[in-house]
């Protein structure tokens, strides 16, 4: 991205970045423990939303993104409880396992494309919950208990603060992965496919391959997040990964700004987690509240919170090429 415009804006941006970095590092000591919990959840969810956004980028609207998350979480949970595998092995294992499953499923469903893809993901979301619920090997409706916490030497991850830093590191890792991808010709091809698949194909871009790559990479990062989620929560029930969760995550993406592939999911997840908490929206009213949020975003902020910010803040920092609203 060229940075020739507004050098002063650049310095300001580096300043802001440094400030944000310091804030992120000191945050768990500044806020009540419960907020640290929210931030951990928001961080893990933001990775899932990044996966959702990259799939959307290549024209795959998925309602099974929480399902992928669940797959990652369950792989890690099972590996930890039944096989007694250490967290640090579970983490790559569930990322690769989720990616492998996504690869196999993707081979079949990505060619279907468009509305068919969307419908299949809805079915997948339902099947996952029902299948896990009915299989006692996977814990059934009672869920899986007693997932071992991660350890480093004699240090055991128990406190919110420790998980906060773990999550922060993971979010940074995933952001870095996606940043490298979006910045490369791969990301340009993804965006091209989402904007006009006919034209992209006509200049030699293999639609299927790039879509599959986006799908599998999303699964990989979502699997990482799922693994940490499982160990953080210590127990899992299938209902946590139902289609409603996917829709919530989708809304987080919209709120952050769907055109912002990395910052959008982070800002969206954090904001929505904090807002629902601060406003004390109960579980009962959450769907109504989120419905209202969708209407608000659709009417006033077509590119989310980040899209509403002035351009000199957002230009070139996070968003790959394209300036106006992403086509959603």
């Amino acid at each position, binding site marked *: 991205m060229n940075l020739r415009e507004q050098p002063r804006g650049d310095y300001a941006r580096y300043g802001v970045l440094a400030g944000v970095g310091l804030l992120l590092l000191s945050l768990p000591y500044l806020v009540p423990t419960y907020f640290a919990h929210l931030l951990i959840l928001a961080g893990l969810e933001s990775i899932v939303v990044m996966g959702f956004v990259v799939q959307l980028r290549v024209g795959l609207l998925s309602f099974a993104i929480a399902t992928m998350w669940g797959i990652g979480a369950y792989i890690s949970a099972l590996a930890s409880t039944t096989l007694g595998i250490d967290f640090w092995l579970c983490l790559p294992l569930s990322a690769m396992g989720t990616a492998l499953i996504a690869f196999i499923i993707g081979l079949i469903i990505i060619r279907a494309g468009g509305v068919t893809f969307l419908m299949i993901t809805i079915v997948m979301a339902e099947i996952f919950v029902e299948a896990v619920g009915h299989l006692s090997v996977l814990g059934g409706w009672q869920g899986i208990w007693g997932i071992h916490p991660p350890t480093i030497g004699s240090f055991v991850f128990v406190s919110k603060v420790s998980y906060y830093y773990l999550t922060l590191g993971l979010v940074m890792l995933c952001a870095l992965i996606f940043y*490298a*991808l979006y*910045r*490369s*010709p*791969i990301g*340009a*091809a993804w*965006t*091209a496919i989402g*904007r*006009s698949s*006919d*034209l*992209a*194909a*006509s*200049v*030699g*871009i*293999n*639609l299927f391959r790039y879509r599959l*790559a986006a799908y599998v990479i999303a699964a990989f990062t979502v699997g990482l997040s799922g693994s940490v989620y499982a160990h953080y929560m210590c127990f899992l029930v299938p209902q946590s990964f139902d289609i409603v969760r996917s829709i919530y995550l989708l809304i987080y993406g919209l709120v952050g700004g769907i055109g912002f592939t990395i910052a959008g999911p982070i800002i969206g997840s954090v904001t929505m987690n904090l807002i629902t908490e601060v406003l004390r929206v109960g579980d009962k009213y959450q769907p109504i509240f989120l419905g209202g949020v969708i209407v608000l975003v659709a009417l006033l902020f077509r590119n989310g919170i980040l899209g509403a910010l002035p351009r000199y803040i957002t230009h070139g920092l996070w968003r790959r*090429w*394209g*300036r*106006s*609203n*992403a*086509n959603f």
Partner: protein
Amino acid sequence: MPIFECHELSKDFGGLKAVSDLDLEINPKEIRGIIGPNGAGKTTVFNLISGVYPPSRGTVVFKEEDITKLPVHVRAQRGITRTFQVTNLFMDSTVYENVCVGCHQNYKSGSVRQFLHTPLARAEQKTERERALEILTFMGLGSLKEELARSLPYGYQRTLGICVALAASPTLLLLDEPVAGMNPEETAVTVELVRKIRDRGITILIVEHDMWAIKTLCDKVSVLESGRKIAEGTPDEIMSNRRVIEAYLGKDEEGGDATRS
């Protein structure tokens, strides 16, 4: 030796024979026109050549290789790229970014190198970006590179479409009605550009309604009617061909000359 051939190329949509038994041979560096009344199957021929539809029968040969079964992107990689009849651009991207995407298939480094931004991948990206700029300058859009494609006037959007197709380094460029909807000045400019593209050694196949453009540009013209080729020859031969005149203007019942030219 023709660079492109198709033999008995046919496409049926249900009972409708959109294209039947089309034979075409195009020589390197030729500008070939395809004309015909509306519904003659010109765009279908385009879609068959670029690989959007598989043909019902027949073969497509490009550089002595049978490409009948290859999908769109592989044909593009072999060197056949196209423009679209309805303007098709990455509207929310800038002019420059549009052309950069066109360069995509010129990258030789693999995805892993691209992901890791190795020096090789970066150097390649730099060359491709320069090439994109060169194409934009060549096509007269250099000064508009930072504009959004959406914000360009119609004529420039059409030109940008050609730039994108050109960025993919084609040897055969398919232009689907490149001057449709343009005023005479824009048409003249585009015609000149197409000629310059040919001078770079690119073979061009062009579907067009604008007879002036066809006449000025094409070395040879093939005429389609109801999916069949009814005539082929130089523009002058075609325009005096009786069957062509009948196809466009209808048969004169009294047997007189249907044209007044």
